[in-house]
C-alpha cells in the first residue's frame, strides 16, 4: 500500500455539524402534513388467553381514526429470523398483534391511530381487553422444568434449542485433572437502551404504489425484505429510509411488530402514520438481552494449566424468537474458551422460552456473558492454587505461532478460527501500561490500612466483520464530486467519516469533500447493515475495492487523454496530475471524458460509477485485555472504579479517535451491566424496572475519571485488503468480567465469591454477609 494519507488519521467527524446544531433528522423529526399518530396497546399480563377485545369506546373518541386488532390483519405471518433460521425456532415467531394469547408484559394487542399521540394514548385507555390468566414462566431455569406452563404448544416444551459444542474429551479430561472446581454463574437481563427510542413514519403513495418507511436502522435491506414478504408486495415497491439514528447497540433496527403495523396502517388508512416509541414502551418492547445461567466445571493442573472446561448453560429467550434468533446463546457457547488453549471443552446451552420480553443481540452478544464466566473461572483457579491471576492467564494463552487457531467451536455453523495475534504480548503490554506490579504493591499497603482495593484482569477475543457480504458503489458525478453509496448503515458510530477516509485514501480527495450516502434502499438497492462490528471491515473492504477500481479507471482514462503512461500519474485534490508538469485533468473533466461515445482506451466501458462486493469468508478477530482497579466501601457496599485500561489490537485503525470513542463508550455500557443495570421481573413475570427511575444507566459520575485506551495495530487481519478488524464491541465485552474480578479481589480478605451481576451495594452487602456466615 502507498503511504497512508487518510487512513489512520484522527479525522474529525463529517456527521458532527448537523448533530451539534440541531439540524440532524431523527425519525421523530420527520413530519408530514396530515400525518396521524399511532400508539400500541400492550399486554399488562405476562401470560393469558385473550377472550375479547372491545374497541368500540376507543373508536368513538373524537380524533381517533382507527383501532386495529389481530382480526383486522388477516392471516399475516410471524416475523421471521434474520439470521440462520432453524425449524424449531420458527414455532416461536411473534405475530404483529397477539390474537389468542399474550406471552409477555408489553406484547402488542391493538394499534390505535389518532390525530395526535395525546389522543391516541387517551384511546388506549378506552380499549377493553378481557383476559384469562395463565401461569407465568418468569424464571429461565424453572422454565425448562417439567411442571412449567408451555408457551408454544407445538414446541412440546419450553426449550426451543439445545446448543452443544464439544472439543476433545471434556468429561474424561476433567475426571483426570488433579484439581477440579465448579461454580454457578448468572448474568442478569439487561440491554442496549439507546437514548433515542425506536420510531417509524410510513407513507403510502397510491399513485406509484410505493410504500416509504422512515426510521429504518441497522438492517434496512433485510427489513425491507421481511416487510415486503409480510405485505405480499415486491421488494422494490418498498422504500426504507434511514434517518439519523440515536444509538443502536444491537437492539434498534431489528424488525419488530411495529415495523409491520405502522406501514400496514399507513396503507390501510391512506395517510402517513407516525409511531414514536415512548420510554415506557421501550423498556418492555425492545429486545432485552444477556440473561444466562452457567454451571461451570474446570479441571486444571497444579501449575494452573487448564485441562478441561465445561459449561452447561441456560439462556433466556423471552416469549418469542426474534430476528436475532440464537445469536447470543450460540456466541456465548463459542466464546467461552476466549484467548486460552482449552483442548477439552464442552458448552451446552438450553435456549428457554419464558413469559418475558423477547431477547436479542446487545453489543457483544454472548461474549459479555462468556467473558464473565471464563474470567471469573480463571480467577477462581488462581485463588484455589494461590497463584497470581496474571500468571494463570499467561500459562494458558494461545501462542502466536499457533495462528490461525481453530478453537473448535462454531458460530453459525462455521468454525471459529482466530486469524492473527500475539495474545501473551498484548497481555504483557497491558499489565505494563496499567502498572500491574505497582498496583499490587499499592493494594498490599491499602489492605494493611484496612482499605479494600482490587485489581481485575480480563483478556478476551472478539469476533468482528461478520457476514454475509457488503456492497459499495463509488461514483464521480458530473460536477466531479465523489459520492459513496454504501450498504452499511450508521447507528451513530461515525460510519460516514470512516467510509470517507477509506475512499479518500484511494482517490486523493479530502474526506470532507466526499459525499456519503447510506441506508436509503431506493438509492442503494442492496446492503447488509450495521451489526457484529462489521461496518468498517466489510463496508470498508467493499469500498476500498470499488474506489480502487474507480481510481484505476481515472488514471487509465487520463493517461489515454494526456498520452502519457498511467504509472507516471498521481491523484491530487480531485484531479489526475502528471507530477513536475502542469498536465492535469480534473475529475469533472474526466467524468465528461468517461461519458458514452467519448474516446477511451480499448476495452474500457464508459462511466465512472463502479460497484463492488466484499464477501465474508472468514471473520476478523481482534483481541484485548481489560484491567480494572476498584475501591470498595465494604460497609456500604459501594464500588468505585478508580482506573480502567482497555488494551485492544484491532489490526488497523482507520480513525484511532473514533476507535477510542467506541471503546470508552462501550466500556460505559459494560460498566452499567457490571454495577447498575438490571431488568428485574417479579415472580409473576411483571417487569419491575420499567423506567429510568429504576433501570439505571451510568452517568458521568459513575465513570472512572480516566478510561485509558492502549490501541495496538500489530496484528492485521489476513482476510481483507486493509487488514481491518472491527472496533465496536471490544470496549464492552470484558467489563463485567474485569470489574467482578476486581471486586472479588478487593474483598478477598473477607472471603467473598462473586458469581452474579450487577454488583449493587445490596449485592456486595449480601456477598459479605454470606462469606461471614460461611467463614
Amino acid at each position, binding site marked *: 500500500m502507498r503511504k497512508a494519507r487518510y487512513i489512520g488519521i484522527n479525522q474529525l467527524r463529517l456527521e458532527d455539524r448537523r448533530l451539534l446544531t440541531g439540524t440532524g433528522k431523527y425519525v421523530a423529526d420527520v413530519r408530514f402534513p396530515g400525518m396521524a399518530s399511532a400508539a400500541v396497546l400492550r399486554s399488562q399480563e405476562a401470560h393469558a388467553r385473550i377472550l375479547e377485545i372491545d374497541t368500540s369506546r376507543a373508536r368513538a373518541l373524537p380524533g381517533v381514526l382507527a383501532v386495529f386488532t389481530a382480526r383486522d390483519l388477516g392471516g399475516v405471518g410471524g416475523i421471521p429470523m434474520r439470521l440462520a433460521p432453524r425449524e424449531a425456532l420458527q414455532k416461536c415467531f411473534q405475530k404483529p398483534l397477539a390474537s389468542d394469547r399474550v406471552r409477555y408484559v408489553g406484547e402488542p394487542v391493538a394499534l390505535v391511530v389518532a390525530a395526535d*399521540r395525546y389522543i391516541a*394514548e387517551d384511546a388506549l385507555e378506552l380499549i377493553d381487553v378481557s383476559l384469562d390468566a395463565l401461569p407465568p414462566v418468569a424464571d429461565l431455569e424453572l422454565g425448562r422444568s417439567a411442571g412449567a406452563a408451555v408457551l408454544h404448544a407445538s414446541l412440546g416444551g419450553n426449550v426451543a434449542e439445545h446448543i452443544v459444542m464439544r472439543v476433545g474429551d471434556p468429561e474424561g479430561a476433567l475426571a483426570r485433572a488433579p484439581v477440579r472446581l465448579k461454580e454457578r454463574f448468572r448474568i442478569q437481563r439487561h440491554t442496549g437502551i439507546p437514548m433515542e427510542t425506536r420510531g417509524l413514519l410510513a407513507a403510502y403513495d397510491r399513485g406509484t404504489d410505493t410504500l416509504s418507511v422512515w426510521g429504518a436502522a441497522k438492517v434496512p435491506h433485510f427489513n425491507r425484505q421481511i416487510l415486503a414478504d409480510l405485505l405480499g408486495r415486491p421488494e422494490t415497491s418498498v422504500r426504507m429510509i434511514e434517518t439519523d439514528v440515536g444509538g443502536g447497540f444491537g437492539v434498534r433496527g431489528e424488525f419488530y411488530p411495529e415495523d409491520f403495523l405502522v406501514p400496514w396502517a399507513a396503507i390501510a388508512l391512506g395517510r402517513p402514520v407516525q409511531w414514536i416509541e415512548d420510554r415506557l414502551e421501550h423498556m418492555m418492547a425492545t429486545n432485552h438481552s444477556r440473561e444466562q445461567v452457567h454451571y461451570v466445571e474446570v479441571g486444571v493442573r497444579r501449575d494452573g494449566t487448564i485441562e478441561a472446561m465445561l459449561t452447561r448453560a441456560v439462556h433466556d429467550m423471552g416469549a418469542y424468537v426474534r430476528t436475532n434468533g440464537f445469536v447470543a446463546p450460540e456466541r456465548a457457547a463459542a466464546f467461552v474458551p476466549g484467548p486460552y488453549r482449552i483442548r477439552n471443552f464442552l458448552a451446552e446451552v438450553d435456549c428457554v422460552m419464558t413469559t418475558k420480553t423477547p431477547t436479542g443481540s446487545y453489543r457483544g452478544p454472548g461474549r459479555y456473558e462468556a467473558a464473565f464466566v471464563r474470567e471469573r473461572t480463571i480467577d477462581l483457579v488462581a485463588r484455589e492454587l494461590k497463584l497470581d491471576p496474571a500468571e494463570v492467564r499467561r500459562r494458558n494463552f494461545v501462542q502466536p505461532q499457533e495462528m490461525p487457531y481453530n478453537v473448535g467451536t462454531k458460530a453459525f455453523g462455521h468454525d471459529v478460527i482466530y486469524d492473527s495475534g500475539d495474545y501473551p504480548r498484548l497481555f504483557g503490554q497491558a499489565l505494563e501500561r496499567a502498572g500491574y506490579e505497582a498496583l499490587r504493591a499499592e493494594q498490599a499497603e491499602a489492605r494493611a490500612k484496612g482499605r479494600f482495593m482490587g485489581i481485575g484482569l480480563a483478556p478476551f477475543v472478539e469476533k468482528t466483520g461478520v457476514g454475509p457480504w457488503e456492497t459499495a458503489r463509488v461514483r464521480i458525478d458530473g460536477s466531479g464530486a465523489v459520492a459513496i453509496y454504501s450498504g452499511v448503515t450508521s447507528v451513530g458510530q461515525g460510519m460516514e467519516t470512516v467510509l470517507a477516509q477509506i475512499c479518500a485514501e484511494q482517490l486523493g480527495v479530502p474526506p470532507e469533500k466526499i459525499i456519503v450516502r447510506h441506508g436509503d434502499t431506493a438509492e442503494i438497492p442492496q446492503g447488509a447493515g450495521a451489526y457484529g462490528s462489521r461496518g468498517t471491515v466489510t463496508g470498508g473492504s467493499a469500498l476500498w475495492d470499488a474506489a480502487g477500481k474507480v481510481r484505476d479507471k481515472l488514471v487509465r482514462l487520463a493517461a489515454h487523454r494526456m498520452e502519457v503512461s498511467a504509472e507516471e500519474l498521481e491523484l491530487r485534490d480531485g484531479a489526475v496530475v502528471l507530477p513536475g508538469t502542469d498536465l492535469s485533468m480534473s475529475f469533472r473533466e474526466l467524468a465528461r471524458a468517461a461519458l458514452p461515445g467519448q474516446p477511451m482506451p480499448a476495452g474500457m466501458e464508459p462511466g465512472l460509477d463502479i460497484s463492488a462486493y466484499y464477501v465474508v469468508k472468514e471473520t476478523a478477530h481482534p483481541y484485548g485485555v481489560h484491567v480494572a482497579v476498584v475501591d470498595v466501601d465494604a460497609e*456500604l*457496599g459501594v464500588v468505585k472504579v478508580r482506573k480502567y485500561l482497555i488494551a485492544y489490537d484491532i489490526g488497523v485503525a482507520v480513525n484511532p479517535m473514533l476507535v477510542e470513542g467506541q471503546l470508552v463508550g462501550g466500556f460505559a455500557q459494560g460498566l452499567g451491566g457490571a454495577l447498575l443495570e438490571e431488568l428485574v421481573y417479579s415472580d409473576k413475570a411483571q417487569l419491575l424496572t420499567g423506567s429510568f427511575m429504576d433501570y439505571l444507566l451510568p452517568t458521568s459520575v*459513575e465513570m472512572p475519571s480516566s478510561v485509558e485506551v492502549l490501541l495496538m495495530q500489530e496484528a492485521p487481519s489476513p482476510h481483507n485488503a486493509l487488514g481491518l478488524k472491527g472496533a465496536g464491541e471490544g470496549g464492552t465485552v470484558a467489563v463485567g468480567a474485569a470489574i467482578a474480578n476486581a471486586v472479588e479481589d478487593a474483598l478477598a480478605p473477607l472471603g467473598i465469591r462473586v458469581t452474579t451481576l450487577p454488583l449493587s*451495594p445490596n449485592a456486595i452487602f449480601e456477598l459479605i454477609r454470606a462469606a461471614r456466615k460461611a467463614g
Partner: protein
Amino acid sequence: MKPPAFEYFDPRTPEEAIGLLGEHGDAAKILAGGQSLVPMLNLRLLRPGCLIDINAAAGLSFIEMKGEELAIGARTRQRAIERSALVREKCPLLHEAMPFIAHFQIRNRGTIGGSLSHADPAAELPAVVTALGGTLILRSVRGERAVKADDFHVAYLTTALEPDELLTEIRLPVQAPQTGSAFLEVSRRHGDFALAAVAAWVRLDKNGRCEAAKLVLAGVHGVPFQSAAAQASLIGTTLSPGDAAQASRLIATELDPQSDLHASSDYRRQAARVLAARALEQAASRARMQAQE
C-alpha cells in the same frame, strides 16, 4: 407518555390559589416545580381534574430572616436555596444537602414546598427540615396554621396537608453556636433517591460535651426517621467514635426499613447505621472546630 387532560388554572396570588383549592379540593393538584408531579402525569399514574399552577403566584418565593428564624417561601426553587448565602450562613445543613437532590436542571424548577408536600420518604428535604426542627405554614380559605415538621410527615407520601390547604412557607431555626452538622447519603447513582441518608447536627457545651443532638434519616422508613433513644444516648458524651457507634446501633435496632428493588431491609439498616455513625463523627468534628473559633 403524554399526560391526561386536565383543567388548568394559573392564579396570580396565593389567595387566588387557596380559593381554587377550596373550590376543587381533592380533584385539584398544586403544580409547583412539577419535577415529581409531571412525570407521574406523563406516566398517567395520576389524573387530577385540575392543576393549580402556582408558578405565577406572587409572594411564594423568598429567603429571608423573620425574627430569629430563616423563612423560605414554599415555591422557592431548590436551586435558589442552594445558591443562597443566607442559607449557607444560617442553616449550613440545608446548604450541604441541596446538591444531593437530583440534578441541577431538576433543582432549577423543583421547589422546597413541592418536595415537602410530595413527601417521598427517600427525598432529602423532608429529613433535613425535620432535623432542623422546621415549622411549616399551611394556608386555606379557613385560615392559616403552623405545623412542626415532625408532625407534617404522616405516612408514606402522606402529609398533614388537608385537601384545601397550601404549604406557603417554611421557617427554620438558625444554627446555634458550637454546633456542627453533616449530611451523608448513599444512592445507586449520583442524584438518585437515597437508599439511606442522614441529616445530623450536634451542639457542644462549653466543656466540649454534647448538649443536644439530632439525627434524621431518609430512605429507611415511611417518614423521616429519628430515634429518641439514639439522640438521648449522645447527651453528655464527648461524641467519641464509640459514642457515635453506640447511637447508630440504637438507630439500627429500632429501624425496620422496607425492602425494594434497589436494596433489602437489612442493607438499609446497615447503611443507616454506617451513615449515622459517619455523620455524627463529621458533625462532631465540625462542632469542635466551631467551638475553637
